[in-house]
C-alpha cells in the first residue's frame, strides 16, 4: 500500500488550505483538522501516514498535549509527528519542547521545499 495520507492539524484555515493544495498537487492525500481534539480523532479514524501538528492553537500548549496524547495511544503512537510552529525562536522554546514525542520541528514560515523534503524523509 502506498503511503500518502497526511494529516495537517492547524487552527489557521489559510495555512491548512495552502498546505493541502501543495501536498495534493504533489500527489499526496492531505486531510485537515482545525483543532487538537478533531486532529486526535482523525488520527485514530483515518490512519494517516504522517502528521503535521501546530503547537499554539486555541491553547498555548494544545499541540504539545496532542503530541503526548498520540504518543501514549497504542493505535497511533507509531505515526510520525512533525511540529510546525512560529515559536522556534521564542526564548525558552527549546527547553519546553525538547522532550516532546515529535520527529522534527519546522519553523514557520516553512519553505515549500523544506516541507516536501520532510514529507519525503518521514514517510
Amino acid at each position: 500500500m502506498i503511503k500518502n495520507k497526511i494529516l495537517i492539524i492547524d487552527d489557521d484555515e489559510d495555512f491548512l488550505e495552502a498546505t493541502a493544495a501543495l501536498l495534493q498537487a504533489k500527489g499526496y492525500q492531505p486531510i485537515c483538522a482545525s483543532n487538537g481534539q478533531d486532529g486526535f480523532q482523525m488520527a485514530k479514524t483515518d490512519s494517516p501516514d504522517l502528521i503535521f501538528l501546530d503547537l499554539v492553537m486555541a491553547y498555548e500548549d494544545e499541540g504539545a498535549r496532542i503530541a503526548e496524547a498520540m504518543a501514549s495511544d497504542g493505535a497511533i503512537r507509531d505515526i510520525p509527528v512533525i511540529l510546525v510552529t512560529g515559536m522556534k525562536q521564542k526564548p525558552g522554546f527549546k527547553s519546553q519542547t525538547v522532550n516532546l514525542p515529535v520527529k522534527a520541528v519546522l519553523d514557520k514560515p516553512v519553505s515549500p521545499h523544506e516541507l516536501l523534503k520532510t514529507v519525503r524523509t518521514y514517510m
Partner: protein
Amino acid sequence: MKPKTLKNTLLLSFLSVIFILGSFTAILGFYLIQDQIVARIQKEVIDKSNSLSLLYEGEINNIAQSLELTSAISDFTVVKKVAKLDYVYEVSSEETSNSNIVRAAFKGKSIGGTRIIREGELKKIFPKSYSDYITAIEYTPKASPTSKKTLNSVIALEYAQPVISQNGEVLTVRYGGRILNGDFKFVDKVNDIIFARTQYKGKPIGTVTIFQDDVRVTTNVLNNEGKRAVGTRVSEEVYQEVLQRGESWINRAFVVTDWYLTAYRPIKNVEGKIIGILYVGMLEKPLVDLRWHIFLILFLVISGTAFGSAVLSYFIAHHIAKPVTNMASAAEKISQGDFSYKVLKQGKVSEIISLTTVFNSMAERIQEREKSLQTSNGKLEKLNKSYLDLVGFVSHELKGILSSIVLNVYNLNKNLLGPLNEAQQKALNSISRNLNYLSETVKNFLNLSRIEKEEFEIKRSSIFLKKDVFDEACEYFIRQAEEKNMQIENNIDPELTIEADLSLIQIAVNNILSNAVKYGRTGGKIIISCKSETEVIECKIYNDAMPIEAADIDKLFKKFSRLNYQGLDKVKGTGIGLFITKEIITRHGGSIWVEPQATGNTFCFTFKRS
C-alpha cells in the same frame, strides 16, 4: 579556626598585659626585696662584729684597770680575787718569762693582749686543776683534717705592767690574766649586750664564739644535744681565709645546726701572729622568713590588683565591644533584608558615634536603593513581559500569516493551481522575492532581539560541519543561486566535527551564504572550504563579487550598517545578518573577518575543534 569575638580579643589583650606587668612586678619585687634584705643583714653582721671587737678590747682594758687599781696590794691571792683574774705574777727577768706580753712590758710600757699559754706553763699555774682547762677536740665534718684529740694549751687575755726605778730602769713586771677556755661569762655578756638574748622559734637569734686557733673554746653556739659546742672546729674555708690569710670572713655559714649570717675576724697576739678567731653570727631564719613574708604580701597585692584589673578589663572590653557588636548584628539584620533596624547612639567615643551615624544613614540609603531597585525590577519585569508578548505575537501571528502566504505564492508560482499569464507570473515573482526578504527580516528581527537580551543559551553538542550545517544551508539557497545562474562548491571534509549549538551555527552560516548569493556576481561561483589546524578550524566562504573596500570592512559587522555599491542598491537587506553572525561566532569562542580578493570576497570564521 573559629574567629574570636571582638570582646574576647580585647579581653585577651588586656589579660596578657596584666599578666606580663604582674609577672614583671613580682620578679622585680622579689629581687629588690632579696637585695635589700641581704644588704641589711650584711650591714648588721658587720655592726655586730665591730661591737664584739670593741667589747673584746674592753675586756682587756678591764683587766688592765683591775691590775692598776690593785697595784698596791702585794698579796696576789687577794689581787686575783678582787680583780677576778685567773693568775697574777711578778717577774724580774725578761728571760724567764714564757709570755710575749711580759717580755714586751720589759721595754718600759704597760701592755695588754691575747696570748697562748702552753701546757708546761699551764701546769705551773694550775698544778691541781690543770686538766679542767684541757679541751677535747670534737669531730667536725667540714673542718680541716686533724689528728689531735685534745687541745693542751689555752688562750688568755693578759695585761703586763712594768715597775720602773727612779732612774728609769725596769725592775720587775707585774702581770695577770684571764683564761677564756671554758669561761662563758664573756660570750654570754656579749650576747646579752648585742643580741639582748633574743630567741626565734626556740633558738637564740645571735651566737658569739672565741676560737683558739680553729677550735671553739668558749661559745654560746649549741650542738644537737643542746650543749655548748666547745671543742668543735671552724670550717676549712674559714680556716684558710681567716687563720691562713688573716682576712675577715663575712658570709652565710651553716653553724652546727642552722644557717647563720656570720662574721669571723682574726685574733692576733702582741707580735701580730694570728692565734684565734672572734666570731659573731645571726640566725638567718628570721630574715628568710621576713623575706618570704614580705614577698607573700607583695604577691597577694599583685594578685589582688591583677584580679581586680581582670574584672575591670571584662567590663571595659564589654563596653568597647558592645557598639561594634550591635552594629555587626544590625549589619546581619540588614543583610537579611530588615532595613528598619537602627543602631542606637551609644557611648561618648567620637569614632563610635560617627560610625553609628554613618552606619544608620548607610542603612537608610541601602533601604532607599532597595526600594528603587524593586521599582526598577518591577518596570523591567513589565518590559520583559511586553517584550515576550511582542515576540510571541510576531512568532505566532506574523510568522503564521507568512506561512500560508509563502505556500500559496509557491503554489501559484509553480502553476500548481493552474497556468498564469506572463504579467501575472512577473508580478508573482516580485511578490515571491519580497516575501523571501520579509521572512528573512522577521527571523533576523527575532534573532537580534534574542542577542540583545542576551538570551542566547549555547547548548553544545558534537555536530558534523558538512552534513548538519553546510549541506542544509546549500540546499536552502540552491534555488536562489540557480536563479542567478550561480554555482556553489561545497568542499568541506565530511568527517569534520565541532562542539557547537547546531541551531545557532545554522543561523550564522545561513546568513553568510544568504549574503553570498544575494551580493554575488550573476553567473559567479561560491566556494566553501574548511581547514583544520591543531585546535582551530577555519571556514572560508568565497564568492565572486565586487570586492569590499578596505574602508568598509569595519562597518560590515555593525548593526544596521549597509554598504552602497553600484548595482547592488536594488538588493534588499536589513543590515543585521552579519551582526548576528558575528555575535554567534564570538560567543562560541571564535572570530570572523572578511578578506577582499581581486575577483570577490572571502568571509572567514573560526571554531575551536571539538
